[in-house]
């Protein structure tokens, strides 16, 4: 479960062009929820994602993952949180070009200090889950965009995180492969009971989730449940 209380993020503090990127955000996402965060560019959704992803610290307010306060952590502690509690999925996949699919999936476990044998076992299992079991030894440049994103989804799951954070996961894909990737998300949600937060500006993508949060000018505009179209 993640919880955000009175979250504020300001840039250029105490200068004439002070910018309030996030303004008094309050939010709670329960375990196993499948949520979309929608907003136009400049709405503050990237800033929000950076804080939720433990890449950045808020100016004020609280952020808790499973009840643990993250907002006051040191850089090293944040690294740990990123590695173990958060699974990142990027628009441009961000796979290691020189490593094969298996090694890419193993990477977060390496930083988490998991043994080589366990790493390989878990990575293979998750590649099977995302239907990439037959591409284990392929390099990223031998994979299509949809396949790369599936490897990235497997990678995000390896340390059994509390939340999967997907930033425009279908943004670099055509609609057909985008649908395949979204179906993988649904499968992960259903089979692994994972909390998934998808940041997107696409209404179609948002329609596939169970809850849609809209953000504008650094504030939550709406937060509504949604019946996913399947």
């Amino acid at each position, binding site marked *: 479960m993640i919880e955000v209380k009175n979250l504020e993020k300001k840039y250029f503090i105490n200068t004439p062009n002070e910018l309030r990127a996030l303004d008094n955000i309050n939010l709670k996402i329960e375990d196993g929820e499948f949520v979309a965060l929608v907003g136009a560019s400049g709405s503050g959704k990237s800033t929000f994602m*950076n804080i939720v*992803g433990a*890449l*950045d610290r808020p100016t004020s307010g609280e952020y808790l993952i499973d009840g643990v306060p993250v907002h006051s952590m040191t*850089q*090293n502690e944040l*690294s*740990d949180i*990123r*590695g*173990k509690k958060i699974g*990142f999925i*990027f628009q441009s996949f*961000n796979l*290691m070009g*020189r*490593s094969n699919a298996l090694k890419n999936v193993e*990477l*977060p476990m*390496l*930083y*988490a200090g998991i043994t080589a044998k366990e790493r390989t076992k878990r990575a293979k299992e998750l590649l099977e889950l995302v239907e990439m079991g037959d591409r284990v030894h392929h390099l990223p440049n031998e994979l299509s965009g949809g396949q790369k994103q599936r490897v990235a989804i497997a*990678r995000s799951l390896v*340390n059994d995180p509390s939340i999967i954070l997907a930033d425009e996961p279908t943004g670099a894909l055509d609609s057909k492969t985008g649908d395949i990737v979204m179906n993988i998300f649904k499968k992960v949600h259903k089979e692994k009971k994972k909390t998934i937060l998808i940041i997107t500006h696409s209404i179609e993508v948002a329609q596939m989730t169970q809850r849609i949060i809209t953000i504008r000018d650094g504030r939550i505009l709406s937060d509504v449940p949604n019946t996913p179209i399947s």
Partner: protein
Amino acid sequence: MFFKENMVLALESLRSNKMRAFLTMLGIIIGIASVIAIISVGDSLSSSITTEMQSIGTNNIRIMVREKDNKFGNPRNRMNNPGSMLSSGASAEDKDLITIEMLEAFQERFKDQVAAISLNESRGTGQVKDERLYANVTVSGVNPGYISVNNVELINGRFINDRDTAGRKSVAVVSDKLVKNIFGSSINPIGQEIKLYETSGIKTYIVVGVYKYTDSDSFFGASSTSEKDAQTSIYIPITLAKQDTTIKNYSSAIIMSKTNVDTDKFTKDIEEYFSKYYETNPKWEVSVINMASQIETASSMLSSVSLAITIIAAISLLVGGIGVMNIMLVSVTERTREIGTRKALGAKNFHIRMQFITEAMIIALVGGLIGLVLGLLLGTLGSNLLGAAPSFSLPTIVLTVAFSMAIGVFFGYYPASKAAQLDPIDALRYE
């Protein structure tokens, strides 16, 4: 272990940029190769110098008559003698040379210091023949002191003695090799006659002694001619060798000091002693050199040359290290997004720093290893060219490898820290 993963990553990164990695390594390759080559050539040279020194004997002092250096001479002298500037080809006359009487007087004066005086008159090459049997020789006229100064090992009979020189007796000391060629193994050569054919004529000698032939005896002949044809020295009384020549006195002699004598001081004494004979001589003087100081000079020259090249190698390593740093900075910039991703996936600053330091270390280490192999090859080649046996020391090799790794760590640290301190958000956004 994490280190192993970093090694794999580093090697993968090298493999994907082979040319760039090689060019980066070049400075380190050149630096390490030259250090290794110089050390091994220097080691083998100095060990061969030491061997030579022991064979010549450190307590041998050479005295030589040489032309006075006109540059520092009396200017009036030069004007009186305009030809003297060009007179380097002139030969000294008997009156300018060292006489037997001078040497005897010297030996009497310094009898506590002098162990032996060696005189040697080379008469060139010849052949000892007995019908179809033959042996090639170089003929040397020697005095009795020659044997102890030059470490001739007598295995049969006796060496040339005072009575031989005084009486100009036709006796000879020959090598065991010559004995084998002429007499075979069944006849005792002592007392036998041999016929020596020289350009000046044929003479008969009686063999009085046999010495053990060693390779160094015929330095140049040994490898190029067959075993049987190799030249060995035949020693005859020096007075006999001088009989047909116009010059009766000696242009050089080797004085062997007794073992407990301070050679450097004794060298000065000798110089002083003989100089008095030459004070009034307008053209000639004596020069006294002790072998130990000569070898010392050669060694110190060698070590200063080594030092110079070592400094150049050190500069090359420095440049190589800067090259590594430069390429690592490029690599960090190129891989900003990768670094951002790694951080998002849980990498701590420490992990990123280690990754890049390992990569820099691997570049330097691979360069160091290539340099090491190249240096060993060059060292062997150089030693062979100089005629010394190549010598390699394991500590040097280990030290070199360790040093190249250290260069990698030192010059990789700054780029690696830069990478480690990247802000993950900025790094992820980097295009």
